[in-house]
């Protein structure tokens, strides 16, 4: 089930809200657990046992780590989690690679990637390491632990929530009108990002790709690659945060206007924050971070980036994508960062690197990828043609809106107005604005049969 579906909005959510709020507080986690399982089963029946087993194993190991033989159990837990992830996500990739290198002809395994496995495996890992590091105490209630792991807002597309961030809410949270109201706002904003922007950008992309391509077309498609994934994924995170808020939970932000970054290093601090901070805390810092020699520091960064590539998918383009960003981070670290003082130039640099980077992210076929990048630089391609001019003009408002909303301009205006005399006006406008966005999203959802989320299979 996806959040931007009528089934979720008009069937699952109202039933859950009703049952949740009429249930006594002490059973509310159980209600969330049951509904999270229903949510998961609706999308993927076959792996629900794997999901529950994963929760049970990590719950037991967590307790063992705390009781005795700590390191041994941590290693066991890490091996189990990583092996499951490797098997489901990378087995066929490795088979294909070995076949390519050694011409072995080994048959692929018939594996379907379990929904949300990358997200819940990382949550398990973070939990075990935090228990081992004594940052948190292990959870003694299986229902509470499983609710943490499979809480439906973050189950299938993140953010990667750490147990320490949610423990208090799991045990003793306060649902109130303010939180619920804020939850509605965030959910509707996320829904609008997904339906009104991400899906519209997707349509723009598919229209352009079906015509003869010019250099301008390639850049327009590159723009849609970057912006679609941003609004798709940040919209999903907004919906997750909003939904969690409706049930009294406080999830951490996963995006912080990454497109306004002035360096690639800064971008990765603002984009998919829960993943970047996972690798930073559990890999980079564990390896010594930047408190080691320059060469070891570069090695640490390389390891982090190789893992980031692999987390995103078992495909060569993801490896190139990770190494591409690793390269820019190293260049910035070594000398470029000092020279990124000019605001305009630094934004141009970041956006150009991102546009090319997300082309690499989106195109899995290496030959197609090379053709695309050649096209972006005018190799064997006309600079402009009728089609590209047409698609630029017809999508100009979408391009402007999606660019502006990628910056904190609206947020800053609202903050300023709130500080001034206009707070009453803002309060009056908020409700109709949110309801308009909600109904507009529903109307576009009704008119369109296309609706897949991008981040589900990572």
């Amino acid at each position: 089930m996806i959040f931007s579906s009528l089934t979720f909005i008009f069937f699952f959510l109202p039933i859950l809200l009703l049952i949740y709020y009429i249930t006594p507080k002490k059973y509310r986690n159980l209600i969330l657990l049951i509904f999270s399982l229903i949510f998961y089963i609706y999308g993927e029946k076959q792996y629900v046992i794997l999901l529950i087993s994963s929760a049970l194993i990590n719950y037991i190991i967590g307790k063992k780590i705390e009781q005795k033989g700590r390191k041994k159990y941590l290693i066991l837990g890490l091996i189990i989690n990583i092996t499951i992830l490797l098997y489901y996500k990378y087995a066929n990739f490795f088979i294909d690679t070995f076949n390519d290198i050694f011409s072995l002809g080994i048959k692929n395994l018939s594996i379907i990637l379990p929904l949300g496995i990358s997200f819940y495996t990382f949550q398990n890992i973070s939990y075990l390491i935090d228990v081992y590091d004594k940052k948190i105490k292990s959870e003694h209630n299986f229902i509470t632990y499983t609710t943490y792991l499979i809480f439906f807002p973050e189950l299938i597309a993140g953010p990667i929530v750490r147990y320490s961030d949610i423990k208090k809410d799991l045990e003793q949270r306060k649902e109130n009108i303010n939180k619920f109201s804020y939850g509605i706002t965030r959910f509707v904003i996320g829904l609008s990002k997904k339906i009104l922007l991400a899906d519209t950008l997707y349509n723009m992309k598919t229209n352009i790709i079906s015509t003869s391509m010019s250099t301008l077309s390639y850049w327009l498609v590159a723009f849609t690659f970057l912006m679609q994934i941003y609004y798709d994924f940040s919209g999903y995170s907004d919906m997750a945060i909003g939904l969690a808020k409706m049930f009294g939970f406080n999830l951490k932000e996963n995006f912080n206007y990454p497109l306004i970054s002035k360096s690639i290093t800064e971008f990765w601090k603002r984009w998919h924050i829960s993943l970047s901070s996972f690798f930073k805390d559990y890999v980079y810092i564990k390896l010594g971070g930047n408190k080691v020699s320059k060469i070891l520091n570069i090695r640490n960064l390389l390891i982090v980036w190789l893992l980031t590539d692999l987390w995103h998918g078992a495909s060569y383009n993801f490896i190139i994508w990770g190494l591409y960003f690793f390269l820019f981070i190293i260049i910035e670290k070594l000398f470029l960062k000092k020279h990124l003082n000019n605001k305009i130039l630094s934004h141009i640099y970041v956006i150009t690197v991102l546009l090319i980077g997300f082309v690499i992210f989106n195109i899995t076929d290496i030959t197609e990828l090379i053709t695309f990048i050649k096209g972006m630089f005018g190799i064997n391609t006309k600079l402009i043609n009728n089609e590209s001019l047409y698609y630029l003009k017809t999508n100009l408002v979408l391009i402007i809106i999606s660019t502006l909303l990628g910056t904190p301009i609206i947020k800053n205006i609202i903050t300023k107005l709130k500080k001034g005399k206009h707070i009453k006006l803002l309060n009056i406008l908020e409700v109709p604005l949110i309801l308009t966005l909600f109904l507009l999203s529903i109307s576009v959802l009704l008119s369109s049969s296309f609706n897949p989320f991008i981040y589900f299979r990572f």
Partner: protein
Amino acid sequence: MKDKIKIILFLTIIYIVPLIIFIKKDTLLSYTERRVLITKEELKKNPLNNIENYLKDQFPKRDKLINISSIYKRYILKNYETNNAYLYKNVIIEKNYPLNTQNINNFITNINKINKTYFKNNNKLLLIIPDKSYYLSNKNYLKIDFNYLELLLNKIEINHKFLNNLTLNDYYKTDIHLKQSSYLKILKEINPKFQNINYTKKVLKDFKGSSYSKIPVVKSEELEYLTNNIIENSIVTHFEYPNIKNVYNLENYNKLDPYSIFLNGPSALIEIETQNDSNKELIIFRDSYASSLTPLLLPYYKKITLIDLRYITLKEALKRVETINKDILYIYGTEIINNSNVLKINFE
């Protein structure tokens, strides 16, 4: 207070909508989309798989909400096109783009081959009707290069005419087709001997054509049909619908496709016998443009056979039709020529 109002309104929407959907009687058809909607019966067969489409189909005020989405794309995003269609001079024009030279060349090769193989000694003519995108200005719209298309079509080895003497007013605003009276202009292109005959023009109000739902800001219009004794006395034999005997089936006006009053809509093979003195017979290979033209040809023929190669293969059609000494007329719009892979032509 603001928070309470927001919560009450949001909850009202998410609770009232499913209640209405499950309490109200299902809507069976979508007239704007011309399709059957998913009902509770189908939902019961496979609830998990059908629930989303059921909710989408039975959503309260569905058509109005879908219109809002078109308005959003058109007036907020300022998209030139909405649902693959343009609004040009208050006429909905479906996009026919890009030019598919492979399909066009296949069409040309097939027409030439059909004539050489089966109709060597027949009188033959191909009429090419431009789709409405022909009349779009080049600025701000994507349209195929019709000059190039005409140039390619010159490779057709039989007499052929690209009907460039029509205007956008000859077409319906909300439908892809020509008004029937517009065909009177081109009868002489088919045969200079065809004289004007008197018809009674009848109109059906509130016509929403097949393009209407794509940009639902254009008002409904009138659907016209021309009739006289010859047309009314002609007897139609449908390959698929043996019970339909009339040229105009007015019952269809209130069904999913109002335009199917003409020859009962899409049909693979139709024979029409007239009560004329003429001994001439005509075979028309056609797309839907021929549906309203054919009645106007009835006064000049004893029998007209219509073959729609989208629904029957050439081989199957020719097994059922006698072709000797018959006039052959091909009528195709430029959409079908540009998408000629839909025609079931094979020579094996």
